[in-house]
């Protein structure tokens, strides 16, 4: 039954309910997590320690390629009809109208009837840390043994052979994604941003120089998970109290670290101090509007900034507040009703946010919908139009490209088709906001990583090798 329930919930939405499965197994384990296991080395602030687990990702070779006669959505709200996109040496070289010069001798693709967008970026994924097959042995997303585990890093749970990466690429045009810890904990740990390129190691997938994020969670999950164990938090007020106590400790740690004296390293505190320094962004799972407002005040109290509220189904109620605080909302188009804090979700959420001037991101939190973020955005756009909010196609594409890149701190590198940026782009066989469109080719750093017309340019993870359906169109 354990497995069945887990599978069902995986299928039917809820990353949050997966937390219930591992907990049953852990019920007899030490209620106090290994909080101090990480605290050992002594360090001085002046020491420049190289970042551990550095990215070893290297762009694969590409050929200089020009796509012409194509409709271009540049990811920053711009649209070019009958345009040209030219990529060379892994970078966007030029983007423009039909007059744009195409150097001689380069590969030219006729994009008639096709569309180009930047690569799709999913700011909320559990590929790798809740991979398929969704077996218990793969359940690595929630370190649900303490309500605050800022010391864990999602990258240490990522299985680089998750078949889901290939589907996100081939069906969804996803070129970069943030892998988050789950939401059992108030502070769930560090996220990692990946290039959607298979590698033998997670380091080989890490997006070079992408800042870290830290996952936080409001509401039902932390209080349910820990309340069920008879420990704090068991209420929403407990959630905030535990958070504040922890931030006080983090401020103290930061002070010690910055004092110039020797101090004992603490992995969790290092991450929190990184947040207070502004180096690590806060990625905060939070459904309800009133809770988001409380979090914003808590952030002010301790001097940190929330980058993005995830699953923010009630953002529409406080769109002005979110705009004024410069916080993005990462939302689904229309998920609702699976739990109490998702009860007031409406399909016009994204449109009302956009109309108010707040930042919108469409996210998946789902190994299936990550394959259709373009479609989810299109539904949200249509629901806006029916209430009189007209958002252009080009602006909607921004929800999937530039906005998530910005919220992740990588918009100087990817997320829009601007010269000098990474050549991460998708050539769609039709308008990506139509249900009938699919990726035709996907480039990452200028390398062709998916080609619908060439079965050899379709990744097959180790797990699927030698299995039924190996290399199938999926």
């Amino acid at each position, binding site marked *: 039954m354990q497995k069945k329930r887990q599978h069902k919930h995986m299928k*039917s939405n809820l990353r949050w309910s997966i937390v219930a499965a591992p907990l049953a197994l852990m019920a007899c384990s030490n209620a106090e997590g290994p909080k101090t296991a990480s605290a050992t080395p002594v360090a001085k602030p002046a020491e420049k320690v190289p970042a551990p687990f550095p990215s070893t990702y290297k762009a694969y070779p590409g050929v200089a390629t020009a796509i012409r006669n194509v409709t271009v959505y540049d990811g920053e709200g711009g649209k070019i009809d009958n345009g040209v996109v030219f990529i060379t040496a892994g970078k966007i070289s030029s983007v423009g109208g039909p007059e744009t010069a195409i150097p001689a001798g380069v590969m030219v693709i006729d994009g008639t009837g096709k569309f180009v967008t930047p690569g799709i970026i999913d700011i909320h994924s559990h590929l790798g840390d809740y991979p398929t097959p969704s077996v218990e042995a793969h359940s690595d997303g929630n370190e649900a043994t303490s309500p605050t585990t800022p010391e864990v890093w999602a990258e240490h749970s990522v299985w680089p052979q998750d*078949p889901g990466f290939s589907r996100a690429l081939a069906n969804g045009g996803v070129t970069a994604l943030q892998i988050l810890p789950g939401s059992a904990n108030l502070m769930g740990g560090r996220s990692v941003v990946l290039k959607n390129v298979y590698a033998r190691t997670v380091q080989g997938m890490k997006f070079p120089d992408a800042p870290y994020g830290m996952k936080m969670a409001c509401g039902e999950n932390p209080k349910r998970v820990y309340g069920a164990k008879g420990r704090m938090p068991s209420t929403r007020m407990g959630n905030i109290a535990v958070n504040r106590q922890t931030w006080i400790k983090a401020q103290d740690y930061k002070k010690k670290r910055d004092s110039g004296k020797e101090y004992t390293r603490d992995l969790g505190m290092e991450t929190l101090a990184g947040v207070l320094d502004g180096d690590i962004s806060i990625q905060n799972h939070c459904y309800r509007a009133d809770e988001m407002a409380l979090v914003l005040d808590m952030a002010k109290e301790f001097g940190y900034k929330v980058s993005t509220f995830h699953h923010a189904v009630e953002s529409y*109620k406080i769109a002005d507040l979110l705009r004024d605080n410069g916080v993005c909302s990462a939302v689904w188009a229309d998920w609702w*009703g699976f*739990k109490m804090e998702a009860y007031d979700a*409406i399909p016009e959420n994204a449109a009302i946010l956009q109309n108010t001037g707040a930042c919108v991101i469409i996210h998946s939190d789902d190994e299936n919908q990550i*394959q259709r973020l373009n479609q989810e955005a299109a539904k949200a756009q249509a629901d806006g139009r029916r209430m009189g909010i007209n958002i252009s196609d080009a602006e909607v594409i921004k929800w999937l490209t530039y906005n998530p890149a910005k919220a992740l701190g990588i918009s100087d590198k990817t997320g829009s088709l601007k010269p000098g940026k990474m050549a991460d782009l998708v050539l769609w066989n039709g308008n990506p906001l139509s249900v009938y469109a699919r990726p035709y080719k996907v480039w990452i750093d200028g390398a062709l990583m998916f080609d619908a017309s060439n079965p050899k340019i379709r990744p097959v993870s180790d797990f699927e090798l030698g299995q*039924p359906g190996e290399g199938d*169109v999926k």
Partner: protein
Amino acid sequence: MRHFLFAAAALAAFATPAVAETIAITGGRVVVGDGTAPIDGGTVIIRDGNVIAAGASVAVPADARRIDAKGKWVTPGVFAGFTRLGLSEVDAVKGTNDKSGGKSGFSAAIDVAPAIDPFRSPFAVNRAAGVTRAVVAPEAAESIFAGQGAIADLGADSNPVTRARAFQFAEFGEDGSALSGGSRAGTHLHFRAMLREAQDYAAGRGNFDDELLKAEDAKALLNVLRGETRLLIHVEGANDMLRLIELKRDFPSVKMVFVGASEGWRIAPQLVEARIPVIASALNDLPATFEMLGATQSNIGRMKDAGVQVAIGMINDRDSHQLRYTTQYAGNIVSLQFVPGATGLTWDEAFAAISSVPADIMGVGDRFGSLKAGKAADVVIWDGDPLELSSAATTVFIDGVEQPLTNRQNRLRDRYARPTEGDLPKAYDR
């Protein structure tokens, strides 16, 4: 005040059809739903809850109320092939979730009909998206037999059940194994033993053993055994389906329908030979379990090409709240036609897979699922291609009754269209 007493007003206004009103929907692109091509400038005539005529050259009765559908699409309502509609308001709030009655001590006898609550929000939300009928199944909890499902309509009235006890639902594969001792061997044994016990019960034999079945369960299984009630079986893997086909040979009168069937394409010829229809998940393409290693979005198209009767359903996939995904899923299956190496459905086939085919598979195709004379007037007018993401239902008839398309989500939308407060708190804004 425009939404004053919304629910009550909706029921009063829409619960009963205007007496003997004839409605003519004219000028639209008419989709019959049986897999034939759309008819431009077609007419649909509705009277007394039924479709009187639909097609290209249909005369409009003089007394008919005309609805101009020029530039619009007119189709049968979506027939959602597999759901848990009306069995939950908020999934994670136990008191509102009636999907599984397995802890009652009963299994096959469980009948979801009284648990289907038409006042729950998913009715209104999915009705507004053009879904008019749904196959509603219980979830299994303690036995491979989950109980008896129903066919429901999404009308804004107090009688949601079109056909109670329309089918029995059972779990095979991994889920079935977990429900029968931890092995597929146990599943087959349970299946055989429970049907045998049902026969013993019918024969009044003394060895009737209520360890596995209560008398009420035995009665329900007798209907399955006699082929009076369809048996919908959730099964995903190729081997599990093959073994079920073998099992069926020992129970030739049992009318099996496979649900899910992610690896159906691997054994499509056998499905055709065994004449087992499939209500398939449309877009499963991941090895979520080891019984779904071969999952691909081309599953439906390949099965259809092989001659399997295949409809789209949503088992364990937001199946109580998001039936409105059905059209999107069908659209995705159409899109596969344009992907090299993939197999999809034509638009006409895809629409049939969410209208006439599921109705046919469930044995109610004579009443539902297509716009043909004599069938229930479940008719939807759309502002564009119903499978396209930008389109919406603008008018919905169920049994000839025009339906309200308002729901709780619209009300929240209207309240917060401008999020800042005005002269009074938002709580006064309605």
